[in-house]
């Protein structure tokens, strides 16, 4: 038999952080997604220990300020796309407001670090989410288009094909065959 899982990423990460940090012995506050404030200075050796513990869960402590900002951009985009009620504002406006930088600055920084534009990244994330909604939530193309704020099914379909090179139906066919063959 096979069981299919759905994750609440926010809860999952928060729980892991709390579990690991309670053993760590330094007072802290979790500041929203992806930020922890320690109430006192943590010595480098202890930080190294934490790095090691986090590594097992795919959590990295970011050092470089540019990378921190890029990660924040990614988190906000993720939040926007995965929200039950997709906020009805442009990504550019939303990012600039939340991060207090001009969109031009954020956009240049993002391309420098990730080799891709914010716009492309948003599309990629949306299509990834569409794949999940197909496979795990068994939503139809129409339902997904509505959920992700596409103006029409055709628009979603076209963007899927443009981004992945294959049609949504071919994608589903391939994944279904893989599962049949247990790959």
């Amino acid at each position, binding site marked *: 038999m096979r069981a299919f899982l759905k994750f609440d990423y926010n809860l999952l990460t928060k729980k892991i952080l709390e579990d690991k940090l309670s053993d760590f012995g330094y007072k802290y506050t979790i500041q929203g997604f992806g930020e922890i404030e320690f109430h006192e200075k943590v010595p480098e050796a202890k930080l190294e220990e934490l790095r090691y513990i986090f590594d097992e869960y*795919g959590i990295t402590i970011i050092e470089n300020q540019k990378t921190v900002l890029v990660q924040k951009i990614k988190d906000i985009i993720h939040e926007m796309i995965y929200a039950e009620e997709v906020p009805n504002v442009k990504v550019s406006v939303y990012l600039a407001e939340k991060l207090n930088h001009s969109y031009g600055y954020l956009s240049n920084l993002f391309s420098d670090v*990730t080799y891709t534009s914010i716009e492309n990244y948003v599309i*990629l994330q949306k299509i990834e989410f569409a794949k*999940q909604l197909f496979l795990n939530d068994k939503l139809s193309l129409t339902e997904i288009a509505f959920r992700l704020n596409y103006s029409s099914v055709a628009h979603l379909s076209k963007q899927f094909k443009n981004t992945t090179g*294959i049609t949504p139906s071919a994608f589903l066919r*391939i*994944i279904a065959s*893989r599962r049949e063959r247990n790959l």
Partner: protein
Amino acid sequence: MEKEYMHIILADDDEDDRMFFTDAFDELKISTKVQTCNDGVELMNYLNKEDSILPNVLFLDLNMPMKNGIECLHEIKADRRFDDIVIAIYSTSSSEEHIEETFICGANIYIKKPSDFNELKRVLSYVVTLNWQYHTSGLNKDNFLFRM
């Protein structure tokens, strides 16, 4: 962080195609390390060595003597040690059936070999950037299918 680079292997029996490929990568802005194998046997020998560094992306030609791309694909997919490798089929064939079959067997990417150097650069740059996003943004590799 700045030191991060992507490790790439190409298995292709055609010497010109190999040269073409490594030259294209030299001109991309993402830092990569490109290694080539002359056929499927050489590739599998390398991968199966315990101390070998596994690539982030493997480009596989389909038509190779001794051991072809599909045989390599099957062997790679049967071994959990290779789960993290993204597999790109790099072939001259563009038959729909062929393409879908390689995806079902576990390939992530299918690229029809372009004959023009600039086109090749464009395609490889796109694929490597896309893979970079999967690599750095924790996207689900099982759902990574891409055709160019």
